[in-house]
């Protein structure tokens, strides 16, 4: 049932009762399904000529970004606007906060201006969790260091579900820098809960063996993994997170792990390739693969908008009724 234009209309019956979205580790399969189903009904709005519903009219959504990410911020802003919320961006680096001011102080100030939902991106794992203990707004984690990026995890799940019709039973490889990737962690929790098989592939310095304990397979040779995969999620090499020396050179990395046409040919014919942007063309995947028929990169962007609308909508449902 698509959402009607009346405020308070319910796009789908849900199992959602949470005030915050901090990570996928905490969520049940039912809760994630609720987000995906809600997102499906919202994605219909994007096809209308008037791309707006009044669901969050009068609500204020703040984007608190302590780390740059134009894409994620824009996606959240647009999602909030389509729900008729007012949005405001606050962008600062942690080091640019005035001396003695903590990011909790900053958030409290913003809350005092009348904020309902805070979308938080921060370089430190757990920062949104800390914030949720000090402010009364709903908190959406838009990426906390190398910990989680739950809306990215959900949009990847949505993209896989749409392309394959299911998630359960699929074999999904996450390729590249697992150690420093919040996308990897959210994907792992989400995929495992939906019953997918998860393979983590990359050089040993970037793919910790301890991840096996979560129920993932750890592999160092892409060639061994390729034939079994239904989906490969190509993670970005986070040059800014490297403490140096995690691999000898970009050239050597690409030689072993870049997704090329040749490697795609060794995989199943219906292989689905995901890549959370921004991608480094010629490092993690060749331009032909990025723009090729297996690539779902642009679908991910579209689905990201629907997922973020769904999350904003669902966490707002737990706020005291303002209307």
């Amino acid at each position, binding site marked *: 049932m698509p959402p009607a234009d009346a405020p308070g209309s319910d796009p789908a019956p849900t199992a959602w009762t949470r005030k915050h979205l901090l990570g996928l580790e905490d969520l049940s399969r039912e809760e994630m399904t609720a987000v995906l189903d809600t997102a499906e009904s919202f994605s219909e709005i994007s096809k209308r000529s008037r791309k707006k519903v009044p669901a969050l009219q009068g609500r204020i959504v703040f984007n608190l970004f302590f780390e740059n990410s134009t894409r994620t911020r824009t996606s959240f802003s647009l999602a909030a606007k389509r729900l008729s919320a007012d949005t405001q961006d606050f962008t600062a680096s942690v080091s640019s906060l005035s001396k003695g001011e*903590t990011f909790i102080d900053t958030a409290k100030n913003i809350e005092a201006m009348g904020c309902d939902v805070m979308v938080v991106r921060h370089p430190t*794992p*757990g920062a949104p969790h*800390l914030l949720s203990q000090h402010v009364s707004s709903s908190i959406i984690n838009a990426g906390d*260091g190398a910990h989680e990026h739950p809306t990215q995890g959900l949009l990847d799940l949505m993209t896989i579900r749409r392309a394959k019709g299911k998630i359960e039973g699929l074999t999904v490889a996450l390729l590249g820098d697992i150690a420093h990737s919040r996308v990897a962690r959210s994907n792992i929790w989400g995929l495992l809960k939906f019953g997918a098989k998860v393979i983590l592939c990359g050089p040993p310095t970037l793919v910790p063996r*301890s991840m096996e*304990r979560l129920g993932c397979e750890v592999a160092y040779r892409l060639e061994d993994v390729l034939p079994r995969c239904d989906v490969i999620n190509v993670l970005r090499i986070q040059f800014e997170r490297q403490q140096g020396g995690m691999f000898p050179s970009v050239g050597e990395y690409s030689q072993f792990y870049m997704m090329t046409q040749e490697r795609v040919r060794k995989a199943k014919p219906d292989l689905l390739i995901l890549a959370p942007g921004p991608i480094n063309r010629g490092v993690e995947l060749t331009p032909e693969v990025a723009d090729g028929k297996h690539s779902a990169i642009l679908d991910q962007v579209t689905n990201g908008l629907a997922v973020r609308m769904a999350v904003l909508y669902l966490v707002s449902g737990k706020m005291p009724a303002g209307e």
Partner: protein
Amino acid sequence: MPTIQITGGRIIDPSQNLDQVGDLWISRGRILPSGGGNEEAEIVVDARGLIVCPGLIDVHVHLREPGNEEDETIATGAAAALAGGVTSVACMPNTIPPIDTQAAAEFVVLQGRRAKQANVFPVGAVSKGRKGEELAGLGQLVAGGAVAFTDDGSPVSNAGLMRRALEYSKMFDLVIMQHCQVMELTAGGVMNEGFESMRLGLGGMPAAAEDIMVARDIRLAEITGGRLHIQHISTARAVELVREGKRRGIRVTAEACPHHFSLTDERLRSFDSNYKMNPPLRTAEDVAAVIEGLKDGAIEILCTDHAPHAREKKMRELDQAPFGIVGLETLLPITVTHLIEPGHLSWSEAIRKMTINAANLLGLSKGTLRPGADADVTIIDPSTSWTIDASQFRSKSRNTPYDGWEVRGRAHTVVVHGEVRYTLGGIVQETPAGASPS
């Protein structure tokens, strides 16, 4: 100074292998022979049902003065010690400026005397400015009152300097205490490296960073004949290395802190900075090994690594919050609840690790109830159940992971230098007004 009679308590003094019910007499700052001679008691403490033992000694505390008085001062730290049953503390030199000169050591001694709470003994820095480059004036530090040496807060990374320190300190027969950590392996680390750090996406500090330094320093102690003390031991392999070193007759000792035998790195799932310490909380296996080391004597000292930090500092994001927790007021109850009650250590074994063993490490004439010894006495209520409430701490800081914990055992009355300086129950008669301090 009044004459004090402590009556009917269970007197446990591991220095004399003593564990019996009886009376303890104190006069003029000294322990009297049993019976008290011809003295007449001015103060009588009823200790029936309580444990009477030598005053507890904590060989590892940070008092933050000078430089970070917003976290703790020598006076507030020494008062927190008393509330925890601790009558003597050895404070680490990582203050601002560091305790690396005679004058700096004398400042600590003076402030400790002024505070008139627990006894305060400075530990001098190993290197000038704690920079790890040149030896500090160890002899001058001794003249200023230093009882040991360490660069704690950081390790002595340079093996050559560590070797010199172990050699040179032999002329005072004082111990070099080492914070064992290979810094190249822990850069960017916030917690123990392993499954939990991987799950949380937090930078890890591998156990091997501690093990490797412990192995290196034991070998350096062997070739120099110096006295090495491993601070806040936390890994299974390090405990094994110390055990092995002792077996081979090397002069190595080790200490463990309550958080390393009562908490694991899984606690960091809360992202609560009160679980951020260095060395970090380790795995359940490491915790079991630390307990085993305490049981078989590989680890002979219990201490706190009391590390106060003002609330605004600990309220920061996990990677920006400082390492460390306060410990003086929770040492005893966590030891009782996690070592004694589960049967890992007897009362006598636990008390030994907080009294005579600690005194021997620092070369203090304390930690014993022998007649003539310094009259520092801790009276413990061993069975009282209570809830730790950080808001009641005497420490200036509140950074504890134990707030709200249900525990057993608590300091009841504390005597320092023959004076009752702390009471919990209020059973003690008032110290006569005008009793002069010495």
